[in-house]
């Protein structure tokens, strides 16, 4: 996986660029890619960078939420599904549903980089995704619940077995602001049915003027920031002192309405394949 370009010093990257120019005469500059050829495909990476305000998120570290309560997150997981990409010209590429289920887990570094292959070449400016598991996917036959949806595998902690539904978003931690004896907070948000509530949310992230230029030889890496502070503020301000447990209850909608807006575009690397 290409990662060095961010970290290595200028001379080395210059050397790399020179090396590339020799190796790929046709598309030597990552900033002026060839016109997309829609019959060709490439890969794209969506990297979810979990943060707490201006800080990188570190589980076990203390932060202060908008209600001025200190809290220590210990777990953060959420489903990203139904990904689609839109080009500058409005062409939409929808990732086949069955290969569009991902579980981002703060504890599993690799899970934060979602790799999508077979994307038609194009200059993509918008990324859409569902946070959660829609009703069709939530009622799949058991044999089709593989990968992130496998409750006996990757999805093992993300399923309510007493009400047959996935937990879309799970954040847990501890806070002394909690007035009860149990100082833990638990946000387990799910609910795909119409009743009693539906927390299937979608979001579209705009890349602004810096499209992700998917080419056979260019594999853009789109960095999306996911800010857990926004879980506590937004449509509704959340105070842990008032309520520290949001699970299968109507007020879970407040958390979902907040977290749908925790995602924002940060930057894109339009780097070549190695």
């Amino acid at each position: 996986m290409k990662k060095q370009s961010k970290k290595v010093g200028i001379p080395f990257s210059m050397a790399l660029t020179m090396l590339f120019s020799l190796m790929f005469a046709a598309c030597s500059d990552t900033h002026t890619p060839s016109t997309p050829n829609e019959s060709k495909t490439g890969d794209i990476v969506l990297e979810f960078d979990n943060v707490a305000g201006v800080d990188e998120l570190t589980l076990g570290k203390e932060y202060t939420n908008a209600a001025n309560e200190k809290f220590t997150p210990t777990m953060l997981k959420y489903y990203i599904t139904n990904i689609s990409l839109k080009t500058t010209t409005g062409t939409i590429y929808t990732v086949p549903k069955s290969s569009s289920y991902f579980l981002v887990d703060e504890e599993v570094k690799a899970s934060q980089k979602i790799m999508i292959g077979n994307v038609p070449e194009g200059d993509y400016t918008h990324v859409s995704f569902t946070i959660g598991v829609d009703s069709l996917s939530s009622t799949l036959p058991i044999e089709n619940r593989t990968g992130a949806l496998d409750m006996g595998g990757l999805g093992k902690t993300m399923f309510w077995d007493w009400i047959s539904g996935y937990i879309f978003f799970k954040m847990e931690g501890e806070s002394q602001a909690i007035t009860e004896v149990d100082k833990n907070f638990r946000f387990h948000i799910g609910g795909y049915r119409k009743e009693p509530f539906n927390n299937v949310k979608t979001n579209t992230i705009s890349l602004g003027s810096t499209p992700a230029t998917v080419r056979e030889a260019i594999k853009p890496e789109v960095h999306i920031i996911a800010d857990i502070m926004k879980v506590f503020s937004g449509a509704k301000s959340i105070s842990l002192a008032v309520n520290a447990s949001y699970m299968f209850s109507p007020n879970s909608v407040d958390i979902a309405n907040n977290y749908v807006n925790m995602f924002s575009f940060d930057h894109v690397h339009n780097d070549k394949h190695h």
Partner: protein
Amino acid sequence: MNLQVICNLLRNYIPIVLCSILLLSCGNDDNPQTVTEDIVKFSVPSNFPAPLYNLSRNPVTPDGFILGRTLFYDGILSRDGSISCGTCHQQFAAFAHSGHDLSHGIDDQLTLRNTPPVQNLAWQKEFFWDGGVTDLDLFPINPIQAHNEMDEKLPNVLEKLRRSSKYPALFKKAFGSDTIDTGRFLKAIAQFQLMCISSNSKFDKYERGEISLSQEEMQGKSVFDSKCASCHKGTFFTDLSYRNNGLSVKNAADSGRSRVTLNKQDSYTFKVPSLRNITSTDPYMHDGRIVTLEKVLDHYEKGVVDSPTLDPLLKNGPERGIKLSSEEKRLIIVFLKTLSDETFLKNKLLSEQ
């Protein structure tokens, strides 16, 4: 196909009288079951509607069924190996838990509710007293992971099966390769449960026109039809709805269907249970509070407690409950006894081997 195989085949579809004649020539019914397993096949009894379970996705095969049965009776599904599905679901009780109001799971912890029978589940879409589970395939995850039942984790169960000496071969027989994954594991257990079909009670044979009921049984049926069948409806004796039949609230924490719908109108409503094999599934009600059928009828006659969600069918002006004379109660019980299916309760195919 030998004679015994044919005999067992016929046994499911023709009156017991005829079958017993055949059995005489089949020799000992106590013989091992291996012969019968070749004919494991899901068939819809002629007095049943079409199943709600999609069998084309998970057709029952002899080897899939055997794997499912082995899993159903194996403590390997629990954390310490002590509890199997069969611990709480006993065949002689139509796979309910005989004599237990609540059941004991691992470390002797009590379940929230009474263990219901496992029978005719292919004709249900929602499981549990509150209907929370909406796919039979997904069902086992709950008891496996419930801290007071088997207290295990599904991935661990799969890992234990992969490492075991017997399971890879059983999965290979059932599914063509020894891969053990969530889908195969759950489908096998579903296959066993799908085969828990009770369709050979006296009542079934009456419905199929194979026999007639006695005069008393018919009288009981007509009392039942007028007083009980609005909820305990049809061939399965349930309309599969959730209702409050006037039990007092004993455990406020168990609000029944409203745990799933979060709707106050569903507070303390529970699934109308089937009454098949009812003489074997005591004690009764979602918390097993009523011990005998006589007492159940006393409840309907004079024990019904009013509440905001009491079912309208149990309200009659200022009166609550169902008017029942002692003769009517006696006749209802006579009729309910025709719902017992000895063939099912003793079917060796479904027993722990």
